[in-house]
């Protein structure tokens, strides 16, 4: 339980209150939307990639505190990094959040992102923390939208007018 209490520590609350890089990048070269249909987290990522470096990055959207803080810290972490380094962070963050990375023993590049480690004890919140990173991966690989759930063919039942 100690880690879950720590999850709402000052760092996360701070990033939730004052998210970094919140906004739309005007001359974006890459963009993706991320959606968690199960809880309603939704965010849009825009980034400008200069050569091999993430020049600028911004996010907008409605989401829970975990997701928003994760997105905020993510944008701060990858800005100025190469695409390769950004993808490494995506993998390491996902592994930390799902408990497959022992972040205290194994070397990694997560730095202050380890503050999200507690989410691995809250399986229902893991997707909230991972969504921004999932979306970053999609953006870097030019996939327009991504969801935490698999996409199926939607059903279309004709709906009559209300009147």
């Amino acid at each position: 339980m100690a880690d879950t209490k720590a999850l709402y520590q000052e760092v996360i609350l701070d990033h939730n209150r004052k998210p970094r890089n919140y906004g739309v990048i005007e001359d974006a070269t890459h963009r993706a939307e991320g959606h968690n249909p199960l809880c309603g987290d939704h965010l849009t990522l825009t980034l400008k990639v200069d050569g091999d470096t993430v020049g600028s990055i911004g996010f907008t959207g409605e989401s829970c505190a975990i997701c928003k803080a994760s997105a905020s810290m993510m944008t701060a972490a990858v800005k100025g990094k190469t695409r390769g380094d950004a993808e490494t962070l995506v993998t390491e963050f996902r592994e930390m959040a799902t408990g497959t990375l022992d972040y205290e023993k194994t070397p990694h590049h997560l730095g202050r992102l380890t503050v999200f480690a507690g989410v691995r004890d809250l399986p229902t919140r893991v997707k909230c923390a991972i969504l921004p990173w999932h979306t970053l991966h999609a953006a870097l690989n030019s996939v327009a939208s991504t969801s935490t759930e698999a996409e199926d063919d939607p059903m279309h039942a004709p709906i009559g007018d209300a009147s």
Partner: protein
Amino acid sequence: MTAIPTPLKAHASTALDVKRVRADFPILRTQVGGKPLVYLDNAASSQMPQPVIDRLVRYQQTEHANIHRGVHHLSEVATGAYEEARRKVQRFINAREEREVIFTSGTTEGINLVMHGYGRKFIGKDDEIILTTLEHHSNIVPWQMLAQEKGAKLRVVPINDAGELLVDEYEKLFNERTKFVAIMHVSNALGTINPIKPMIDFAHARGVPVLVDGAQAAPHLPVDVQELDCEFYAFSGHKLCGPTGIGILYGKAAVLERMQPFKGGGDMILSVSFEKTTYNTIPHKFEAGTPPIAAAIGLGAAIDYLSAIGMDKIAAHEVDLLNYATEQVNGMPGVRVIGTAEKKAAVLSFAIEGVHPHDVGTILNQDGIAIRTGHHCAQPVMQRFKVPATSRASFAFYNSMAEVDALIAGIRNVQKVFA
């Protein structure tokens, strides 16, 4: 339907002895992170009292065998207990005949059974099915599937900002193509108790049958299916202190007899050959294969337990809890109740300004408080209120006023964390 009393002030319930009742529920003594469990997620599932647990154990220890087929002693005992459970359900909902009570795996299966057994046989191209904005996905998706398959159309009754159905809009939806109405009795997301009796009467005057989703109603209010006169009424065992995996579909005998079966297999047939198979009579026509025998008997025991307390007493205590909780929440700045219908069951959906429901639920959980956060399988309702999700506390007769106090303190704590 009996009017639910709505006292203006919270008062200690003289009718229901909550402390006595809580002693029957071992799980209520659970500790969560060193704090006592405050279980306020009863709309999702209810807890099981010791007498029902004991009945399940006794069945497995002394009575179990497969039913209906054997001539040996245990088979007769098990069959007797299973059919006795059916009669208990019949009495609980005042069905005219026991053969109108079908055991299912839950409300969702019951609705799917009606979609397949009635809908696929009698509803066709350009026919219209009336639903409401309040419906749980289990009473939307089967009808969407049917509409897609047949080229039929769904018409949706809107709600007002309090979460009440607009009954005059419902009436306007009817035309000569209307072939079915599917409505929930009590909203799991908002707590609204719908005026289903006049809505059923209106449909019947136009020759249209009605299915009622009673999942949130049967555990909390007295239900009389003859008085309601609906063609179908579905509910789940685990929401009224019974085991999971069992539910009830009530159907009028004349309608059930005209329906095609849902699942094919053993028990639902009279005779089988590769040339021709004849179906069994009701209810067995809709009970293919070995049923959840133990669970059905457990449901019967749960009904005994609730009936011994009295559904009226249960409803009255829950109204007290709801009114007390609502009063408290209404006095808290930054917290908004979602679902303010005049007639409500003990469900309190709320929103804390600036805090996402998932964060609310996680922080309350740290205090041992179990609520549900999300769309409650009612995404259309959420969309209507322009929220992705709500936080929902749902009460049962074994919740106490002290637990409401704990919830209120918990909400204050959430606001403090996010201040």
